[in-house]
């Protein structure tokens, strides 16, 4: 199995078992990574990838199994041991102190001192040097709060390298990056590999796996189910191993023209705009302009995709449209009705549905049952006098669970007990399983496994065919390209470009997403 003949592998994990209460996250997972390679650890959400890597980096102690790093038995070591041995993990969610500078963040935990005081100058020198040699460009004296997401991630990697990491574990590093930032990251990782460092990349994006990795380990349900050489395999083979069955992989754009009869063109002025937004200005929590004079309309039977790096005003735009955030200027019409000053509930009654971007904070009440979550926002329609009509609440739940294949099919379970994909299906079922005209779909497939993505995309396409207007906001450009009829790029609070799907591609949109290109395309 070892690729490097006589040389011992950098990492060898054998039959790792790790559980959280009744949940077996790893049930005999194994991993072997050779020195100086980029190894992709792939699998669906909940397959146990992150858990396995947290066991390796000493955060969790496995119940059984054996761990070797550079041929040394390190079973059950601590995070401090792992750092000393040069194993470092960069997490999906950044662990930086925003009010401190880059250099201060990097030296945090290993502060350099001179006579009892912090030696900032030396820290900045050392970080600048490390930044130069690794190609992770970031100025050490800047405050982390002022950095872009891509820069913050570089700081995370620098921090790990500063502690002497020779084995670098990256957990879903591209989730928040724009295409050019992803390209830069691949270059940096490639250089590190060429210097002999070992990299484990946790991901479930197959294009990334193909682009950067040398070897692949596939996990499913806590077990290792495959080990592949990237050069000898195909994306569909990997996807099959991940899911355990064949998957409709190509997220190809299916336009109305090809799928059903006469086309509904967005540009035809004869078509009614179901959602019309004019000159919208919204401020963020810090009272800075987050949405800057945005105007657009979505016709019946149209999906408008908003592409862009997260944090460019998408959240504020969606919340303003949903009625969750006050606006400074502009108007919002749904089916020609002015809803600018209506409440969340009144907008819902006017035909607005909303899949919120964060299902755990907004979309679900985790302690509430599936049935209760399926009426959230509609509770005034399920009453008998001042009581909730429990029979109708349960009937509705059974119907929706059945129609949207929520598992397990028990309306009484708390939403917390369901997997991420099934939790998202509750939100989708509630928002799409009722009468609506306009749908705000924010990150509708975030943290959802491949099978559920297929299902959710099919639902969105069906809603388009049924003549609904859909605003799709996603950090996943592939998803935007797969579903939208028109694509707008949001940058710095403005819609900097709007292009029909046929003219759109990552190459066309990328420069707008990073602000490299400005101006308004057709």
């Amino acid at each position, binding site marked *: 199995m070892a690729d490097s003949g006589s040389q011992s592998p950098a990492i060898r994990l054998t039959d790792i078992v790790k559980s959280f209460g009744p949940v077996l996250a790893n049930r005999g997972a194994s991993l072997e990574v050779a020195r100086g390679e980029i190894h992709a650890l792939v699998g669906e959400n909940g397959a*146990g990838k992150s858990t396995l890597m947290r066991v390796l980096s000493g955060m969790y102690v496995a119940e059984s199994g054996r761990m070797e790093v550079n041929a040394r038995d390190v079973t059950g070591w601590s995070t401090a041991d792992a750092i000393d041995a040069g194993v470092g993990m960069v997490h999906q969610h950044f662990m930086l102190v925003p009010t401190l500078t880059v250099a201060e963040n990097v030296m945090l935990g290993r502060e350099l001192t001179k006579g009892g005081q912090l030696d900032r100058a030396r820290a900045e020198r050392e970080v600048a040097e490390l930044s130069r040699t690794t190609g992770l460009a970031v100025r050490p004296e800047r405050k982390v709060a002022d950095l872009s997401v891509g820069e913050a991630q570089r700081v995370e990697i620098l921090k790990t390298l500063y502690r002497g990491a020779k084995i670098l574990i990256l957990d879903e590093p591209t989730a928040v990056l724009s295409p050019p930032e992803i390209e830069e990251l691949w270059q940096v990782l490639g250089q590190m590999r060429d210097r002999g460092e070992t990299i484990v990349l946790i991901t479930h994006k197959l294009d990334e796996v193909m682009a950067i990795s040398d070897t692949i380990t596939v996990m499913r349900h806590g077990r290792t189910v495959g080990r592949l050489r990237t050069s000898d395999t195909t994306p569909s083979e990997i996807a099959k191993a991940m899911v355990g069955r064949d998957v409709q992989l190509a997220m190809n754009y299916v336009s109305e023209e090809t799928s059903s009869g006469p086309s509904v063109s967005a540009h035809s002025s004869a078509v009614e705009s179901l959602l019309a937004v004019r000159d919208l200005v919204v401020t963020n929590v810090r009272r800075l302009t987050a949405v800057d004079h945005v105007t657009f309309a979505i016709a019946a039977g149209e999906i408008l995709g908003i592409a862009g790096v997260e944090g460019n005003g998408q959240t504020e735009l969606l919340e303003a449209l949903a009625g969750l955030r006050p606006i400074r200027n502009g108007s919002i019409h749904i089916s020609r009705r002015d809803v600018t000053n209506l409440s969340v509930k009144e907008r819902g009654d006017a035909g607005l549905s909303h899949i919120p971007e964060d299902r755990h904070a907004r979309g679900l009440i985790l302690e509430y049952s599936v049935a209760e979550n399926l009426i959230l926002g509609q509770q005034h329609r399920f009453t008998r006098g001042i009581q909730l009509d429990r029979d109708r609440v349960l009937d509705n739940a059974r119907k929706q669970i059945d129609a949207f294949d929520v598992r397990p099919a028990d309306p009484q379970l708390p939403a917390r007990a369901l997997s991420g994909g099934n939790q998202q299906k509750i939100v989708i079922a509630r928002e799409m399983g009722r009468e609506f005209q306009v749908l705000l779909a924010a990150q509708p497939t975030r943290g959802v496994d491949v099978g559920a993505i297929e299902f959710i995309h099919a639902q969105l396409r069906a809603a388009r065919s049924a003549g609904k207007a859909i605003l799709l906001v996603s950090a996943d450009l592939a998803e935007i390209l797969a579903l939208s009829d028109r694509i707008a790029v949001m940058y710095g609070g403005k819609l900097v470009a709007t292009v029909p799907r046929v003219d759109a591609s990552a190459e066309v949109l990328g420069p707008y997403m990073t602000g490299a290109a400005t101006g308004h395309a057709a």
Partner: protein
Amino acid sequence: MTTTEARLSTAAQPPVAPPVDRTARRTALEEAVLPAVVALLVAAIVGDILILTFGQSPGTVYRLLLEGTWGNAYGLGQVLYKATTLTFTGLAVAIGLRAGLFNIGAESQLAAGGFVAALVGLLLPAGMPALLTLPVYLIAAAAGGGIVGGVPGVLKAKFGAHEVITTIMLNFIVLALLNYLTAAHLKVEGSLHTAAIHSGALPRFSSYIEPFHGSAANVVLFIALVTAIVTWWFLFRTRRGFELRATGLQPEAAEYGGINVGNVWWRAMTLSGALAGIGGLNFVLGYKHYYEDSFASGAGFLGIAVAIVGRNHPLGVVLAALVFATISQGGLAVNAVVPKQMVDVLQAVVIIAVAASVPEVRRMLRKAR
């Protein structure tokens, strides 16, 4: 905090659990009930140690305590009387916590409810039947407590003022005001209480059952039980209760669900204050038939403990009110052998043990499966 610690703390969350079976509901029940049981056991052990340090036998002291409370009609009557007030203040705090609000003001809301009820009682003509006056008294007591509770609610909804701060401060203001009004204007000479109300006084149990003679227990106990049932129904069966609990669990999700969170806040605080206020009837209408300054001193604060031990569930609140009433009355019964301050310590131990055992018991339950 070092970076390593920061990583560890965020790493502590296990991944989202995969589908589980129906035992989830049984688990929820165990997790709700067991911490209280564990806390009482811990309190009993601490109690043993305290008793031993006073050179007494725990068995003797506990027997005395039980004999002095549940062992005779008078003791039982006193327990039921105290439990009645604690049920109201416990429900008040519980409904606040269900809405995500920590009402520390039950103490002054209780007093205000009793005060306003007594004022109304002084104005009512003598000799009106209790059936007619009871609704008037209920409204008066609810209004008195409701206003004192509602003010922090409105301040929170409109200005974001934290309810813990405002309810604590209102305790000082309201209790001082009531003390002043009683002492300066309303007191019967030589006392700190008002004149007796003219009509609508409710009977004590001793009017029907002779052995209860001398105990304060009265029919307001039944009002407390009905209130607990109505509170349960409101929380778990009505649309407003659904919205109130949603706001308490996840205000952002509630807002997303079309719920006006600010409205829920001030309504919940008003309701909370009203529940505490009705508790004032236990003294004014059922026991002494006048308002007396600091008539139930401490019962508002003890309501916080009752709500927490009762896990904010109306049934749990009733049971916890009985437990705390028993400990409180039991302190008088054992006063001859151990100092009565010991029961104050025990009450505090129960509260600390519950606070500590909720996460710990939950962790052990999960590990055991």
